C-alpha cells in the first residue's frame, strides 16, 4: 500500500482517426519549449518526453532528487534505426552526435538533464503491464523517501519498425502514438494498492481496463492519463481500479482510493 498526492497529469497523443506514427499536430509550442538544436539526431519520443517534462510542471530552479520513470515498449527505436541507416548512407560523414540520442534510454537521459533530476531514474518495459509497473516504481520511490517527487512518462511514439513489431502480437489492440506525463508527490490524498498476482481469468482480454471499461489502445499512455483523470474526480472513500493484462496470465491491478482532499505534503520542486 502506498500513499501519494497527484500534482498534475498531461497527455499528448494522436487522435483516434489518425494513421499510427508521428503526431499530425505536435504541440504548437514544441520548438519554443525544447528548441530545435539537435533535431536531426533526437527522435520524436525524446522530444515529446522532454516537452511534457518541461511544460506540464513548474520549471526547476535547481537540481532536485526527483525520481524519473519512463515506461515504454519501443522508446527510442526511431533514433536507433536512424543511426544504423545513417552509417549506411553517411559513411565517414556520420556525426558522433547520433549515438547519445540513439540508446534505448536516451529520452530518460535528456529528461533528467532537462529538469535537473538527479534521483532514481529508469526506463522500463513490462509489455502491456507497463503502466502499472511504472507507477509502482514511482510510488515506491516516494514511500521509501528516496524522492519527494516522482515523475512518470508512459507511452510510445511508433516508428515504422515499432509498428511492425507491435502488430505481431495476437491481440486486437490499436496502436496510436501518445505519451502521458504525471507528477506524483508525497502526500495522503490517495491510497494505492497493487495486485501483481497472475490472472485467474483465462479468457480475459489482453490490454488495459478502468473498472470494467476496456481500452482498445495498446499504448498505455491513453489509459494512464484517463485513469489518473478519473482518480482526481473521486470523492473521499471512492475507489477505481486499473487492470492491465498481458500474455501468459500476467496481470497488474492498481486500486486507487481517495482518502481526502488535503493537499498538504505536496512536494515542491527542489525538496
Amino acid at each position, binding site marked *: 500500500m502506498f500513499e501519494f498526492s497527484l500534482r498534475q497529469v498531461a497527455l499528448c497523443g494522436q487522435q483516434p482517426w489518425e494513421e499510427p506514427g508521428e503526431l499530425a499536430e505536435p504541440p504548437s509550442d514544441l520548438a519554443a519549449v525544447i528548441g530545435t538544436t539537435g533535431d536531426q539526431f533526437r527522435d520524436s519520443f525524446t522530444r515529446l518526453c522532454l516537452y511534457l517534462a518541461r511544460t506540464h510542471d513548474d520549471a526547476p530552479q535547481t*537540481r532536485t532528487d526527483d525520481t524519473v520513470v519512463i515506461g515504454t*515498449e519501443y*522508446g527510442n*527505436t526511431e533514433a*536507433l*534505426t536512424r*543511426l*544504423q*541507416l545513417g*552509417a*549506411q548512407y*553517411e*559513411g*565517414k560523414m*556520420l556525426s*558522433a552526435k*547520433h*549515438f*547519445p*540520442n*540513439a*540508446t*534505448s*534510454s*536516451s529520452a*530518460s*537521459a*535528456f529528461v*533528467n*538533464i532537462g*529538469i*535537473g533530476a*538527479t*534521483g*532514481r*531514474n*529508469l*526506463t*522500463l*518495459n*513490462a*509489455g502491456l*503491464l*507497463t503502466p502499472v*509497473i511504472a507507477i509502482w*516504481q514511482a510510488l*515506491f520511490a516516494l514511500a*521509501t523517501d528516496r524522492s519527494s517527487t516522482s515523475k512518470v512518462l508512459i507511452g510510445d511514439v511508433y516508428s515504422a*519498425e515499432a509498428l*511492425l*513489431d*507491435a502488430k*505481431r502480437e495476437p491481440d486486437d489492440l490499436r496502436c496510436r502514438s501518445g505519451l502521458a506525463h504525471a507528477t506524483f508527490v508525497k502526500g495522503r490524498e490517495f491510497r494505492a494498492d*497493487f495486485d*501483481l498476482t*497472475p490472472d485467474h481469468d483465462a479468457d480475459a482480454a489482453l490490454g488495459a481496463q478502468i473498472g470494467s471499461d476496456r481500452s482498445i489502445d495498446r499504448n498505455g499512455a491513453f489509459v494512464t492519463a484517463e485513469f489518473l483523470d478519473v482518480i482526481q474526480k473521486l470523492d473521499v472513500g471512492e475507489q477505481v481500479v486499473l487492470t492491465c493484462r498481458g*500474455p*501468459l496470465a*500476467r496481470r*497488474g491491478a492498481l486500486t486507487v482510493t481517495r482518502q481526502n482532499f488535503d493537499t498538504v505534503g505536496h512536494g515542491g520542486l527542489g525538496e
Partner: protein
Amino acid sequence: MSRSTRIFVTGLGIISPAGAGTGPFWDDLCAARHRFTDLTPLYAGMKAGALGGRVPQEARDIALAQVSEQTRARPRAASLFAEYAALEALRDAGLEPGDETVRNAMVCIGSSDGQADALEDVVGGRRDITETGGFSSFSITEGVAATIGARGPAFTTQSTCASANVAVSCAIEMLRSGIADTAVVGGCDPYSEKNIIGFSSLQAIGATRCLPFSVNRRYVTPSEGAGILVLQTEDALRPGQQPYAEILSTAISNDANHPTAPDRDGVEACHHRALAEAGITAADIDVIFAHGTGSRANDTVEGGIFTEIYPRAAVTAIKGTVGHLMGAAGAAGAVASCLTLKHRLVPPTAVDAEEVDGELNLVTGAPLAMPHLRYVQNNAFGFGGNNAISIFRNVA
C-alpha cells in the same frame, strides 16, 4: 514493505566471451585471460582492427541446447544469453524451472541494446519481422520468465550500461515490498551493429584492448553476454542453504549533466547513496569491482573517487579480460563479486602493475587472496548519466 528484509544471492549464471558458465568465466578472470577478436568494419567510417569480445560458438551451442523451444527456433542473441544464464543460476540455487518457489518469482532483466540483432536485421532488410521473432525489449524478460516457469512480475530495465544493476535494484525493492520472495535478475546484451557504429563514431573503440586504469588506456572493448543472479529473501532460503552473499543495497542516481561524459559529483553522490543504503562506510569496503571501461573519462572519475574516498579498498576491473558487456556489465561484475566472496580471491585487472595510473590500489598480476573479506562493491555506469552501485556482504 520492510526495509529490513534481508536478501541473499543464492544462484549465479553467466555466458560471456570466456564461455558458457561461471567456471570458464572465473578461470579467465583469475588468469586475466582475454579472447578479443577483430570486429568487422560496419561502415565506411569504421577502421579495421577494432577489438571486441564475442561469445564463442561453442558456448552458443551449449546455450542453444538448453533454452526454450521458441528461442531455439529463432535464436535472438539477447534471449539466448539471458535464458541460458537464468537456467544456470536456477540450478546453482538448487531450484528447478516451474517449481513452487520459481513459479512465484519475479523476473527483471536489464539490457541496453535489447534484441538488437532482430531490429537491425529488419532495418537492414535482411529478415522480416516475423522471421526475427520481434525486438521489443520486454520479449527478453518474457522469454526468461517462460523458460523458468515464473509467473510473478516481469519487466525489462534499460539504463545503458547500468541496466543490470538497475534491474537488481528494482528486484530488491519488489522483494522488500513483499511482492515476491525470489527474483531472477540480471542483465544481457548482444553484439549490436548500432552500438559498434556508435562507439566507432565517438572514436572510442580501436586496435588496443581495454586497459582499465592504465596510463596507456585509450579504448573501450565492446563485448556481449548475460549474467543472472537468483535473489531470495531470508524466509525463502532452504534450511542449511549457503548463499554466496547478502546484497545490502543497489543505489541508482543520475548525473543530470551530460549525455555521454560522466560527472564526478554525480558519480560520487551515487557512491555515498549506496553506502548509506547499505548502512556502512567507505572504510568498510574491502574490494571494488570498478566500472573501469578503459576510457579516459570514466577511469579518471572512478580512480579519483577510489583514491580519495576508498584508499583501503582493493580495486579490480574485469573489462580488460571479458570486455564491456554493455547492459550486462553490472551483472558480470555482480557475478564476479559473488565468486570473489565465495573464493576469498580477487581476480586481477589485465594491466601491468607499472602502468597503473596514479595511486590506485589496483589488483594486478596474480589473484589477491583476502581471507577476511567482508564487503564487496560493484559499480556500473552508463551514457546518459546513469549510475548504479551494489554492495554485497560476506555471509560465510
